[in-house]
C-alpha cells in the first residue's frame, strides 16, 4: 500500500479494517480504533472472530467472501461491552479483504437476529419432517408449507385447498377430524389426534396438532403441524400384538410374570402381574410388596429362595428354583421360578425379569406316578424272579430233552447202521423177487430212520450252539453234481423234470463247509421234489439255479424253484421252526419230521447267509439261499492237464438245442484251460476235427435219421456223448446202447467236464481180450510137488507161486524136502524159528527182497554169534555184477533162473 494512500486510508472518516485470508487483522484505520477504543497494535494479528461475534452461526467471510456482502454482528470489547455493527466487504484484492465497519441500527440487528431464528426454526421443522398448515376460519383460506405438501405428495405448483386436504382424509376418519376441529374451536380442547390420509396409492397415518388464533376474543384461524406417523403406528400395532400374544400365552400356560428394577434411590422396585399375585394368594393391593410375597414362601424354602435371588441380583446368576408356598389355609403349592438379570450400560445388574408356574398339579401327578412306579417295580421284580425260575426250569427240561434225544438218536443210529449193513449183504445174496422187494422196503425204511436220527442230532447240536461250520476248500460243482445225481432217478420215477443251471463264472473251488452245503441243497431239493407233481395238465418241474449274487459277487445264490403245491403266507411264517410242517394235512400226506427247513435255516445263518421263501398256494415255491463265499486263491488244478489241447465238437440236431450247447461250451471253457470247443452247424456235413463230440437231440424220435447219418459219417469212430430230453432217455438207450447218454435238463458242470475227460480217456484206453474163454484146467496142485508137509532142512523163499511149485518139484526130484516162505519177512521169521541147513531165496520179492533178508539174517547171526547159514540166491537177472552184489550182501552162492536141475544139484552138493 502506498504511503499516501495509506495515510489517506488511515485518516478516512469511515471505520475500516483489513484482514487476510486467515481472517487475521492486518490493519485498522483511526476511525475504527476510535470506534473500538483500541490501538492499532492491539488489533493487528487478532483473529476477527476474537472480537467479532457474528449473528450467523458461521462467519461468512471464511468461505469466498462476496464484495458488498453484509455481515451483522457484535464487537465484544469487554465482557460487558458490546457494539452492534454491520460489516460490509468493500474490496477484495489478492486475498486481502477490506471491510467497512458501521454502527448498526437496532432494528437492523433485531431483524437480522429474528430472521436468523426463523430460518433456523424453519430448517429444523423441515428436518423433522413436520408440515405446517393454517386454516382461516372466517374465509376458509388455507396454507400448507412445502414440507406439508411433500408429505401429502402435492407439488408446490398445484393448487391445494383445505377442502382438497379434507378430501384426502380416509372416509372413516373424516368425522373424527371434523369433530376434533369443532371441539377445539368451540371448547378449546387441544387439537391433537391421529388419522389416516390417502397419499398417492398408500393409506398412511398422520399426527395433527393445532392451535386456534384469537383476535379480540374471536377465533380467526387455526395453525398447526402435520407429521407422518405411519412407522410409529406400525411399531405400536406390532408391539400391541406381541404384548397381547404374550398375555394370552401366559394366561393359557398359567404363567405369572414378575420383575424388579434398580431405581435411582438404590432400591429394587418389585412388580408382578395378576397371575403371580393369585399364585402367591396375595391381595391386589399387595402387588409389588416383596415382603408380603416372601411371607407366603414355605419356611423351609424361604432362605434358599432369598439366597438364590440375592445371587441373581448381585452376581447376575440366572434364577432357577423349584420351591413351595405355604398358604394361610395350610395348602402347599409347588412353584417353578425362572428369572434372568439384565445389565445396564455401566455393566451393573439393573433389572431382573422372570416367570413363575404353579406346578402343584404336576407335582401331585408325579407323586402318584412315583407311587405307582414303586408298586410296579415291586411287582416286576417279583414277576421277573418267577419268570427266571420258570425259564431255568424250562431250560433244564429242554436240556434234559435234548440230551435224551441226542443220546437216543446216537444209540439208535449205531444199531441201525448194523441193520442197513445186514440188509445190504442180504440184498447181494440170491433172493426171490418178493424177498428182494421186502429187503428194499426195509432198506428204505432203515435209511429214512437214520436220516431222521441225523436230523434230530443236528437240531440238538444247533440248539446247543455246538454246531460249527468248517471253512475248507471244496469243489462246489462236485457238491451240486452229487446232489443232482442222487435226485435224478427220484425225479424220473415221479415223472418230474429236474433242471440245473450253473453259472460258469462261479469258481470251481470255494472255501466253506461242503458237507453242510450238501445237506442244505439236499433238503431243499428233496422238499421241492416231494411237493411237486406232474398231472395231465401240468408237467412238474424243479429247477436248481446256482449263480453269483449280482450285488457284489461275493455271495453264492441258490434258487430252488418248483411249480408244486406252494405254501400259504400264514404257514410260511412257521415253516423254519423245528418240528413245524406246512400243515397237519401235509404231515399226514407227505410224512417227514419238519426238521429239514429248521436245520437249513440255522445252517445258512451259521454260514452268514439267508434263506428267503417266495410262494403262494398252487403257484409253486422258490427257496432262495444266499451265502457268502471265499474264493480259494490258488484254484486247484482239479482236472490237471486232462483236457489240455483237446478239441470238443458240439452238434445240435435242431435250433432248440442251442441253449444246451452253449451251456456245455461255457462249462468246458470256464473250467479247463487249453481246451477248444467248436459249435458246428445243423447241416454242416464237414468232417469234425475233434477228439470228442457232444450231440444235442431235443426231439430224438424225429431226429433218429439225422443222428444215424451223423454217427455214420462225420463223427464215425469219434467218442460221442448224446444229450437228450428226459422222455427220450429210454429211446436213446434202446437205439444207441454203446453211446454215453446224458439228460439235457440235469446236466451239471462236473458231469460235462468228467464225461469229456472219460471220453478222451476211453479213446486212449487199451481194450484187450481178457482171456476169459481160456480153458486152463486141470490146475497144478501141490500134490504134484510131493511136498505137502512143507517141512525140511532147506528153506525156499519165493513169491511167485509157479516158481515156488517148480523149485519144490525140483527139490523133490533131488530128494529134498523143503519149507517155503513167500517173502523175505516170512523167511526171517521161519529161519529164526527153525534149524535150517540151507536157504534158497529169490532176490526180487515184495515186502522184503532176498538181498535185504540176507543182510538182516547176517546181522542177527553176528549179534547172536550164530554160525552163518548158507544162503543161495536164485536170481532171474543173472547179469554181470549180480554175483558180486550177492557176495557183497552176504550171500553164499547163486544160481540163475530158471534153475537147471544140474545147477541145483551142484550147489546143494556144495552147501548142504
Amino acid at each position, binding site marked *: 500500500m502506498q504511503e499516501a494512500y495509506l495515510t489517506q486510508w488511515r485518516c478516512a472518516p469511515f471505520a475500516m479494517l483489513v484482514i487476510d485470508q486467515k481472517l487475521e487483522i492486518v490493519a485498522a484505520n483511526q476511525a475504527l480504533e476510535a470506534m473500538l477504543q483500541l490501538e492499532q497494535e492491539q488489533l493487528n494479528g487478532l483473529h476477527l472472530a476474537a472480537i467479532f461475534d457474528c449473528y450467523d452461526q458461521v462467519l461468512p467471510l471464511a468461505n469466498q467472501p462476496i464484495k458488498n456482502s453484509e455481515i451483522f454482528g457484535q464487537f465484544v470489547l469487554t465482557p460487558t461491552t458490546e457494539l452492534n455493527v454491520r460489516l460490509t466487504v468493500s474490496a477484495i484484492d489478492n486475498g486481502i479483504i477490506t471491510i467497512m465497519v458501521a454502527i448498526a441500527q437496532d432494528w437492523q440487528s433485531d431483524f437480522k437476529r429474528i430472521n436468523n431464528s426463523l430460518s433456523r426454526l424453519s430448517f429444523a421443522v423441515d428436518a423433522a419432517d413436520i408440515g405446517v398448515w393454517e386454516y382461516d376460519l372466517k374465509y376458509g383460506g388455507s396454507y400448507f408449507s412445502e414440507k406439508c405438501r411433500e408429505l401429502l405428495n402435492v407439488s408446490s405448483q398445484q393448487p391445494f385447498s383445505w377442502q382438497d386436504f379434507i378430501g384426502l382424509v380416509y372416509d372413516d376418519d373424516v368425522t373424527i377430524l371434523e369433530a376434533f376441529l369443532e371441539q377445539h374451536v368451540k371448547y378449546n380442547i387441544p387439537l391433537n389426534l391421529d388419522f389416516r390420509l390417502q397419499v398417492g396409492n398408500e393409506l398412511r397415518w398422520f399426527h395433527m396438532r393445532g392451535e386456534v388464533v384469537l383476535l379480540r376474543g374471536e377465533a380467526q384461524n387455526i395453525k398447526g403441524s402435520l407429521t407422518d406417523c405411519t412407522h410409529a403406528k406400525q411399531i405400536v400395532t406390532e408391539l400391541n400384538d406381541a404384548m397381547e400374544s404374550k398375555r394370552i400365552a401366559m394366561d393359557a400356560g398359567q404363567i405369572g410374570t414378575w420383575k424388579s428394577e434398580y431405581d435411582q434411590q438404590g432400591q429394587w422396585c418389585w412388580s408382578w402381574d395378576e397371575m403371580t399375585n393369585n399364585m402367591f394368594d396375595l391381595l391386589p393391593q399387595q402387588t409389588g410388596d416383596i415382603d408380603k410375597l416372601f411371607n407366603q414362601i414355605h419356611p423351609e424354602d424361604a432362605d434358599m429362595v432369598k439366597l438364590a435371588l440375592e445371587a441373581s441380583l448381585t452376581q447376575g446368576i440366572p434364577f432357577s428354583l423349584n420351591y413351595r408356598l405355604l398358604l394361610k389355609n395350610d395348602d402347599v403349592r409347588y412353584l417353578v421360578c425362572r428369572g434372568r438379570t439384565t445389565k445396564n450400560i455401566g455393566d451393573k445388574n439393573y433389572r431382573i425379569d422372570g416367570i413363575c408356574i404353579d406346578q402343584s398339579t404336576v407335582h401331585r401327578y408325579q407323586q402318584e406316578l412315583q407311587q405307582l412306579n414303586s408298586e410296579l417295580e415291586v411287582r416286576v421284580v417279583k414277576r421277573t424272579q418267577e419268570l427266571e425260575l420258570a425259564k431255568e426250569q424250562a431250560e433244564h427240561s429242554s436240556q434234559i430233552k435234548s440230551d435224551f434225544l441226542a443220546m437216543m438218536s446216537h444209540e439208535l443210529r449205531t444199531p441201525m447202521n448194523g441193520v442197513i449193513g445186514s440188509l445190504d449183504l442180504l440184498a447181494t445174496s440170491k433172493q426171490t423177487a418178493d424177498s428182494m422187494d421186502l429187503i428194499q422196503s426195509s432198506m428204505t425204511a432203515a435209511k429214512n430212520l437214520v436220516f431222521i436220527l441225523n436230523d434230530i442230532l443236528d437240531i440238538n447240536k444247533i440248539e446247543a450252539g455246538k454246531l460249527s461250520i468248517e471253512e475248507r476248500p471244496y469243489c462246489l460243482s462236485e457238491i451240486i453234481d452229487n446232489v443232482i445225481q442222487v435226485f435224478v432217478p427220484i425225479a424220473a420215477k415221479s415223472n418230474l423234470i429236474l433242471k440245473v443251471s450253473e453259472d460258469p463264472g462261479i469258481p470251481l473251488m470255494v472255501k466253506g463247509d461242503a458237507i453242510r452245503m450238501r445237506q442244505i441243497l439236499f433238503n431243499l431239493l428233496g422238499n421241492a421234489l416231494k411237493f411237486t407233481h406232474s398231472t395231465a395238465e401240468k408237467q412238474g418241474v424243479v429247477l436248481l439255479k446256482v449263480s453269483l449274487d449280482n450285488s457284489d459277487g461275493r455271495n453264492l445264490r441258490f434258487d430252488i424253484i418248483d411249480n408244486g403245491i406252494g405254501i400259504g403266507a400264514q404257514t410260511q411264517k412257521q415253516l423254519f421252526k423245528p418240528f413245524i410242517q406246512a400243515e397237519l394235512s401235509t404231515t399226514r400226506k407227505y410224512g417227514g419230521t419238519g426238521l429239514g427247513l429248521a436245520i437249513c435255516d440255522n445252517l445258512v445263518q451259521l454260514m452268514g447267509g439267508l434263506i428267503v421263501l417266495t410262494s403262494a398256494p398252487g403257484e409253486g415255491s422258490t427257496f432262495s439261499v444266499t451265502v457268502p463265499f471265499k474264493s480259494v486263491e490258488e484254484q486247484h488244478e482239479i482236472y490237471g492237464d486232462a483236457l489240455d489241447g483237446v478239441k470238443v465238437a458240439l452238434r445240435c440236431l435242431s435250433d432248440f438245442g442251442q441253449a444246451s450247447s452253449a451251456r456245455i461250451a461255457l462249462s468246458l471253457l470256464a473250467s479247463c484251460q487249453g481246451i477248444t470247443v467248436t459249435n458246428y452247424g445243423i447241416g454242416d456235413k464237414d468232417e469234425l476235427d475233434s477228439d470228442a463230440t457232444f450231440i444235442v437231440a431235443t426231439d430224438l424220435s424225429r431226429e433218429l435219421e439225422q443222428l444215424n447219418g451223423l454217427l455214420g459219417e462225420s463223427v464215425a469212430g469219434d467218442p460221442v456223448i448224446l444229450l437228450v430230453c428226459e422222455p427220450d432217455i429210454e429211446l436213446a438207450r434202446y437205439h444207441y446202447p454203446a453211446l454215453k447218454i446224458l439228460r439235457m435238463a440235469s446236466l451239471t458242470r462236473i458231469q460235462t467236464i468228467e464225461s469229456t475227460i472219460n471220453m478222451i480217456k476211453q479213446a486212449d484206453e487199451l481194450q484187450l481180450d481178457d482171456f476169459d474163454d481160456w480153458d486152463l484146467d486141470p490146475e497144478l496142485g501141490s500134490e504134484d510137488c510131493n511136498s505137502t508137509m512143507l517141512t525140511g532142512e532147506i528153506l525156499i523163499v519165493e513169491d511167485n507161486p509157479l516158481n515156488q511149485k517148480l523149485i519144490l518139484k525140483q527139490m523133490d526130484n533131488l530128494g529134498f524136502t523143503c519149507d517155503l516162505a513167500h517173502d523175505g519177512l516170512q523167511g526171517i521169521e521161519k529161519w529164526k524159528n527153525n534149524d535150517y541147513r540151507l536157504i534158497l531165496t529169490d532176490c526180487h520179492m515184495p515186502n522184503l527182497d532176498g538181498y535185504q533178508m540176507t543182510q538182516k539174517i547176517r546181522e542177527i547171526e553176528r549179534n547172536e554169534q550164530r554160525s552163518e547159514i548158507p544162503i543161495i540166491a536164485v536170481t532171474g537177472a543173472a547179469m554181470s555184477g549180480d554175483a558180486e552184489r550177492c557176495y557183497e550182501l552176504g550171500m553164499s552162492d547163486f544160481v540163475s533162473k530158471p534153475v537147471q*536141475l544140474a545147477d541145483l544139484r551142484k550147489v546143494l552138493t556144495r552147501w548142504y
Partner: protein
Amino acid sequence: MEVLNRNVMRELIGDDNQLMKKFELEFLKQARESMRKITGLYNNNQVVLIKEEAHFLKTSAKAVGAELTADILQQLELIAQENNKAQCKDAIVQLNVALKQVYGAVRS
C-alpha cells in the same frame, strides 16, 4: 526164439509131459491175471508200476519156456521203467498176441 520151448521145462523137471502141461496151464493162469493188472495200470496211467508185474511174469515165462513172451516182458520192464506210455501200449499189445500164441501152443 520160440513161442513155447518145451526143452526148457524138460531140463527143469524132467520128461514128465503131464506135469509140464500143468505148469504151462499154471503159467497161462498167471499170465491172464497179470495181463489184467498190466492193462489196468496202463489205463490208469500208472505205467511205471507195470515194471514189477512184467518182472513177476517174466520169471514164470522163462521157467515154462515161453521165450517170446519172456522177451517181450523183458522189453516191457525196461520201457515201463522209462515211463514211455506209447511204447508200453505197443509192447502190451505184442504181449497179448504172444500169450495167445502160448495158449495155442499149450492147447495144440
